[in-house]
C-alpha cells in the first residue's frame, strides 16, 4: 500500500490571518509513513470562522483532523468537542489555545481532544503535531482493515470447510438411502462398493478434520514445538521408506540424494516429517504409473534446500500459482479421482515459515512437478508463530 493518503484538515479559528497562516504551513506538508507499507500522507485543507460554521462543514464533509481554536465567538471549542464526541464522529482534534494551562489540556483530553497546542503556534510545532496525528490515524486505519481482512479470511475458510465436509456427507447419505430400502435388491458387487466408498469418504473427512486442526494449531501458535539437534538425512530416509510402500504399488521408483547422512539441523523433527510426508505423498499421488520421485537435500552454508521432483501429471501455471492456498487443489480431469483435503500444502507453507524459509513450485503439465523448500539452518528454539 505504498501510496499517498489524503487527509482532510478543517481549521476552525475566528482570525482569518491565523487560518491562512496555518494553511500555508500545511498545504504542501507531506508526512512519510515508515514501515512495510511505506507511503505518505498529504493534506487537503478547509476553513471555518466559527463553531457553527464548522459544525455545518463537518456535516457536509467530515474532516479527518480538526484544528480547533479554544476561544471562539458563540459556541466554544470545548463545547464543540463535546458535540463531535456525542455524534460519534471519528475525528482527531487538536485544540489550539492562547491559555494553554494544564486545566485546559485536561478538559480537552476529557472531551476527546488528541492534543493541545499553545498559541502562538510555531510552524514546526504545527507540522510536528500534524505528523503525529496523521501517523496515528493511518496506523489506526491499517489495523482496522487488517482486522477486517482477518475476519473475512476466517469466514471464507469456515465456509469452504463446511462445503468440503458436506460433500462426503451427501455422498454417504446417498449410499445409505439405497441401503435403507431393503427392497432395492442390490447385487453383492454394488453392496461392497457402497460400503467401501462410504468408508473411503469418511476417511477423507477424517483427514480433512485432522489437517484443519493441524493448520489452526500451527497458526495460533498452540502447537508445542520441540526444537533440537536432529539429522535431516535420517528424517528424510525414514519418510522415503514409508512412501516407498505406496510408490511400489504404482511401480514408482523413489530415490534420496545424498545416500547417507548425517545432515545436522536444529529443528522439530515432527515438523520436518510433515514437510517430507506432504511432498512425498503428493509426488506419489500425482505421478504416473512407472514414474519416479527424486528427493534431494543440499546443505549450503546457513541454508538447506530440499527438493522433491516427480514425473507426474504436472500442473498448468494458474493451478501451480494457487496450490499453496487453503483448500485449493488442482481440479481437472486428471485429479478428479485423487483424494486430498486441499490443506496439505497450506500446512507445509506455514511450517516452512517457522524456519524463516520459503517453498516454491515449478511444474509442467504431463512432465512433472518439483517442489523446492529452503530452510534456515540455525533456528532459535521459540514458540510457534505463523
Amino acid at each position, binding site marked *: 500500500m505504498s501510496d499517498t493518503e489524503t487527509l482532510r484538515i478543517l481549521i476552525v479559528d475566528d482570525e482569518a490571518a491565523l487560518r491562512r497562516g496555518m494553511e500555508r504551513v500545511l498545504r504542501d506538508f507531506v508526512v512519510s509513513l515508515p514501515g512495510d507499507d511505506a507511503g505518505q500522507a498529504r493534506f487537503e485543507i478547509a476553513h471555518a470562522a466559527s463553531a457553527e460554521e464548522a459544525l455545518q462543514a463537518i456535516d457536509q464533509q467530515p474532516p479527518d483532523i480538526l484544528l480547533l481554536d479554544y476561544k471562539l465567538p458563540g459556541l466554544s471549542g470545548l463545547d464543540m468537542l463535546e458535540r463531535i464526541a456525542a455524534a460519534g464522529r471519528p475525528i482527531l482534534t487538536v485544540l489550539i489555545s492562547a491559555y494553554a494551562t494544564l486545566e485546559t489540556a485536561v478538559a480537552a483530553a476529557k472531551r476527546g481532544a488528541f492534543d493541545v497546542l499553545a498559541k502562538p503556534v510555531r510552524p514546526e510545532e504545527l507540522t510536528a503535531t500534524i505528523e503525529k496525528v496523521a501517523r496515528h490515524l493511518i496506523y489506526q486505519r491499517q489495523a482496522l482493515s487488517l482486522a477486517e481482512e482477518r475476519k473475512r479470511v476466517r469466514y471464507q475458510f469456515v465456509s469452504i470447510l463446511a462445503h468440503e465436509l458436506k460433500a462426503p456427507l451427501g455422498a454417504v447419505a446417498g449410499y445409505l*438411502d439405497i441401503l435403507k430400502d431393503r427392497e432395492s435388491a442390490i447385487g453383492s458387487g454394488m453392496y461392497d462398493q457402497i460400503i467401501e466408498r462410504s468408508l473411503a469418504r469418511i476417511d477423507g473427512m477424517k483427514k480433512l478434520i485432522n489437517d484443519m486442526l493441524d493448520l489452526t494449531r500451527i497458526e495460533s501458535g498452540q502447537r508445542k514445538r520441540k526444537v533440537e539437534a536432529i539429522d535431516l538425512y535420517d528424517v528424510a530416509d525414514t519418510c522415503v521408506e514409508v512412501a516407498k510402500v505406496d510408490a511400489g504399488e504404482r511401480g514408482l521408483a523413489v530415490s534420496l540424494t545424498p545416500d547417507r547422512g548425517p545432515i545436522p539441523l536444529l529443528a522439530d523433527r515432527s515438523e520436518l516429517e510433515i514437510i517430507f510426508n506432504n511432498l512425498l505423498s503428493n509426488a506419489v499421488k500425482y505421478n504416473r504409473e512407472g514414474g519416479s520421485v527424486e528427493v534431494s537435500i543440499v546443505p549450503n552454508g546457513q541454508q538447506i534446500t530440499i527438493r522433491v521432483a516427480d514425473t507426474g501429471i504436472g500442473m498448468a501455471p494458474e493451478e501451480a500459482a494457487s496450490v499453496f492456498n487453503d483448500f485449493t487443489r488442482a481440479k*481437472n480431469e486428471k485429479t478428479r*479421482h485423487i483424494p486430498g483435503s486441499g490443506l496439505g500444502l497450506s500446512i507445509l507453507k506455514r511450517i516452512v515459515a517457522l524456519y524463516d524459509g520459503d517453498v516454491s513450485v515449478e511444474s509442467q503439465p504431463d512432465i512433472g512437478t518439483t517442489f523446492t523448500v529452503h530452510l534456515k539452518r540455525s533456528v532459535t528454539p521459540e514458540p510457534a508463530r505463523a
Partner: protein
Amino acid sequence: MADFTGKSILLVDDDVDLLTGLVFQLKRLGFDTVTAETQRDGERLIDETTPDIAVFDLMLEHLDAGFTLCHRMKRKHPGTPVILLTGVTAETGLEFDTVTADERSWVKADAMLAKPIRFEQLQREIERLL
C-alpha cells in the same frame, strides 16, 4: 412408486459417489441415465443428447459451471426442465435464489436444491417438473 420408464435424465456432478447413488435410485424409478463429471463433458452431452430433464451441480471445474450448463441447456432444449444443485455460496461470492422473477430470469434453472441433498427431495422436484 412413480414410474418414469422411457424417460431420460442428464446428470452432471463431479462427486462420483453422489452420482453413483443418484444413478442407482433414478434407474429404479425407470429413468435412463446419462452422466458426466465435468462441465466439458456435460456440454458435449447437452449437444448430443435429448434428455427429458437435467440435473447440474453448480461447482465443477469452474465455480459457476452449473450456470453455464443451465444456459446452454435452455438454449438447446428450451422446454426441458433443469434442476441446479448448489453448495455453500459463501466461497463463490454468488448469492442467489429463484424466488423473485428477476432472479429467475438470469439463473436458467426451474428448481434449485441446496447440497447435501436427499434423494426424496430430488424425486419430489422431478415429479413436479415432469
